């Protein structure tokens, strides 16, 4: 570990903390439906979209209507992308003349992009035409992110409103977030990426004759426009197979830093927006503090392990940290930091191959996802996931002091706690059962590249990443098979929507409740005691279930590595 590495990590955190309030305030304006300076330019677009679609943006929707409209929209998007991918061979902007995407791969990819997961069963440059990348995939990067933020807004309204029937308007939330936040930021980011060396062209691959006279073909395409939203919307699906490790996706250490900041930017801002929505910004800071503590602990472990390196390589006379799967321009610190950021959020972009990390260095990304990606988390999904844990935390605190739990002015009763547990239980239930199935069937066992405990880690990582809607991989796993495409596709869908529906039910139930003023007997939900309790609940409820699985995978792998046992 180096001083420069720690400066990078400190600077990263400092920039985010400084941006939390301005971004949070901007999001708050969108949450409230207020006018922003951008309305002058994009207001007509917004109104035109509503008019053409027969939408009344002022209609206050019940949680059921909000949920149904969200689901139907997502199904429409999914079908749209499935059709584009299947038909890409006959559609324009296909300079490589690629054939149609196979049915099981198109199924997997359409689901995965709809659900903000962006699992890459495909190798981008060899599978997807430029049109598929733009029309099939980029739109999901925007809309799955906007859906996540809209859902967070809906839950915020549940806490903030009093005796209300509705939780907002889904279409208005999605449209405003897309037009006034995601799109303008992406325009700025895309121009920055192009200036830094990320290609943006409709042309096909270019042939080069290398200095030694060999032939190399470089895939090009509209990369920068996809890259911008890929990170900002915590999507993570790369234009290229190697994702942000590819020099065309992230050519410099500066693009790498901007990408990491993009991943966390909206998630951090939303914690402030939450505080603002419930009328006490300290509520937001308390949540952010708990998230940051978990984040820094994870970063320290990965950085330490990766810098220490692989003793089996040292024995051969190799010096230095673990560089297998890492790029020289990023080095160990920025690769370790990126891996924690991308899995703490539901991004899943990678700038280094997690499969080749040291066992414990690779375990932290896995564990981050198993916690439900609530450490900052995906755009929207992180904060609503975390608020589910907050509901459990006040419930546990209420049991300890023998009072009905309250949170930010709302009584938390049996119904909310049951729904929260339901949403939280989805993760371990699907991850562990699907991993178990894949670990005994021949079709599942055919997947792993690595043998021994690391092979099991590859399977566990895949289902964890799918259900948690992350999309990063221990990419040695051969996942582009009917078995894995189908299993992972189903896992992704359940992981996304089996959490969202109970969460919206909580929002509806809370919105209908009266406000309960804070009294001397209320359990304070700001301050270090609360932050500590939150961390404890996240680790115990979210993490403990996975300990046996982690013992069989990364921990066994670590013990094998230090003993020099190879597979």
């Amino acid at each position: 570990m180096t001083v420069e590495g720690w400066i990078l990590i400190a600077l990263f955190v400092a920039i985010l903390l400084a941006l939390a309030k301005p971004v949070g305030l901007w999001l708050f304006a969108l949450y409230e439906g207020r006018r922003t300076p951008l309305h002058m330019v994009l207001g007509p677009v917004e109104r035109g979209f509503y008019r053409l679609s027969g939408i009344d943006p002022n209609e206050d929707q019940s949680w059921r209507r909000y949920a149904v409209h969200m689901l139907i929209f997502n199904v429409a998007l999914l079908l749209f992308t499935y059709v584009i991918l299947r038909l890409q061979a006959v559609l324009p902007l296909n300079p490589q003349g690629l054939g149609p995407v196979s049915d099981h791969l198109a199924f997997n990819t359409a689901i995965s992009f709809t659900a903000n997961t962006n699992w890459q069963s495909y190798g981008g440059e060899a599978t997807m035409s430029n049109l598929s990348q733009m029309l099939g995939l980029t739109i999901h990067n925007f809309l799955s992110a906007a859906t996540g933020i809209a859902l967070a807004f809906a839950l915020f309204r549940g806490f903030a409103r009093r005796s209300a029937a509705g939780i907002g308007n889904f279409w208005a939330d999605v449209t405003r977030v897309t037009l006034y936040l995601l799109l303008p930021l992406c325009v700025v980011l895309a121009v920055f990426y192009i200036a830094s060396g990320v290609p943006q062209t409709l042309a096909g691959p270019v042939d080069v004759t290398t200095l030694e006279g060999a032939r190399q073909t470089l895939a090009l395409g509209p990369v920068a426009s996809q890259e911008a939203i890929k990170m900002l919307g915590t999507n993570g699906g790369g234009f290229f197979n190697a994702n942000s490790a590819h020099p065309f996706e992230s050519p410099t250490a500066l693009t790498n830093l901007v990408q990491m900041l993009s991943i966390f930017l909206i998630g951090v801002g939303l914690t402030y927006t939450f505080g603002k929505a419930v009328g006490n910004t300290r509520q937001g800071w308390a949540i952010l503090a708990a998230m940051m503590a978990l984040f820094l602990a994870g970063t320290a472990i990965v950085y330490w392990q990766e810098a220490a390196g692989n003793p089996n390589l040292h024995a051969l006379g190799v010096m230095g940290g673990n560089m297998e799967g890492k790029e020289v321009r990023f080095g160990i610190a920025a690769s370790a930091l990126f891996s924690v950021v991308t899995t703490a959020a539901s991004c899943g972009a990678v700038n280094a191959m997690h499969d080749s990390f040291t066992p414990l260095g690779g375990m932290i990304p896995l564990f981050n996802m198993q916690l439900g990606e609530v450490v900052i988390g995906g755009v929207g999904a992180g904060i609503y996931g975390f608020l589910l844990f907050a509901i459990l935390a006040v419930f546990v605190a209420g049991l300890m002091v023998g009072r009905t739990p309250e949170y930010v002015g709302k009584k938390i009763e049996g119904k909310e706690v049951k729904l929260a547990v339901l949403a939280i239980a989805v993760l371990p239930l699907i991850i562990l059962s699907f991993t178990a199935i894949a670990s005994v069937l021949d079709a599942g066992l055919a997947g792993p590249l690595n043998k021994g405990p690391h092979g099991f880690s590859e399977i566990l990582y895949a289902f964890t990443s799918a259900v948690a809607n992350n999309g990063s991989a221990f990419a040695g796993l051969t996942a582009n098979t009917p078995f894995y495409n189908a299993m992972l596709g189903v896992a992704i869908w359940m992981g996304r929507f089996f959490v969202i529906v109970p969460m919206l039910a909580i929002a509806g139930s809370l919105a209908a409740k009266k406000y309960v003023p804070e009294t001397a007997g209320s359990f304070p939900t700001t301050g270090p005691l609360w932050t500590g309790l939150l961390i404890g609940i996240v680790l115990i409820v979210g993490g403990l279930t996975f300990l046996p699985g982690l013992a069989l995978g990364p921990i066994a792998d670590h013990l094998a590595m230090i003993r020099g046992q190879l597979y």
Partner: protein
Amino acid sequence: MGSDLKTAFRPAISMTILFALLLGIAYPLAMTGVGQALFPSQANGSLITQDGKIIGSSVVGQAFVGERYFHTRPSAAGADGYDGLASSGSNLGPTSQALIDRVAADVEQKRAQGVTEAVPADMVTASGSGLDPDISPDAALAQVSRVSAARGLAQVDVRDLVERSIQRPLLGFLGEDRVNVLELNRQLDRLGSTTAR
């Protein structure tokens, strides 16, 4: 519930089409236009032309196998490495026998090529993309004796060239010390021709 469903279809279909036009067509095309107008070189892949031929991209690595050039890192992109249509890492885990065998073979080869010290990690590990354009300064310096012998150049000149080619981190901490191999090898070719003259 029934009315919730019935009212959902029209906006769902209509908004899918409208957003597809805005985000899937207008946005990437506008960015392509802006990129091509303002930064044409970068937008087209930062290609380097030499003697009328495209010889590579300044941001993407390419394979070097001959004795006369500095070598890039091992690559898992495609069957032969540095395949620009198949970016990939090796994905081998830390306890993989295949990884240890590969590294052991590479270390042996480096020893045969005159690397006497501890081998820099990046020299015998595959990058994440398989297209890493850079190597560490240590990895470059370890190749000086081989390259200068193959070219009949003085070691001190080649070492000088490497040291001049080291790119430092932005602001001192952003990134790593590194050497762009294609750029270094192009300089090397020029060094050779000036000495010969």
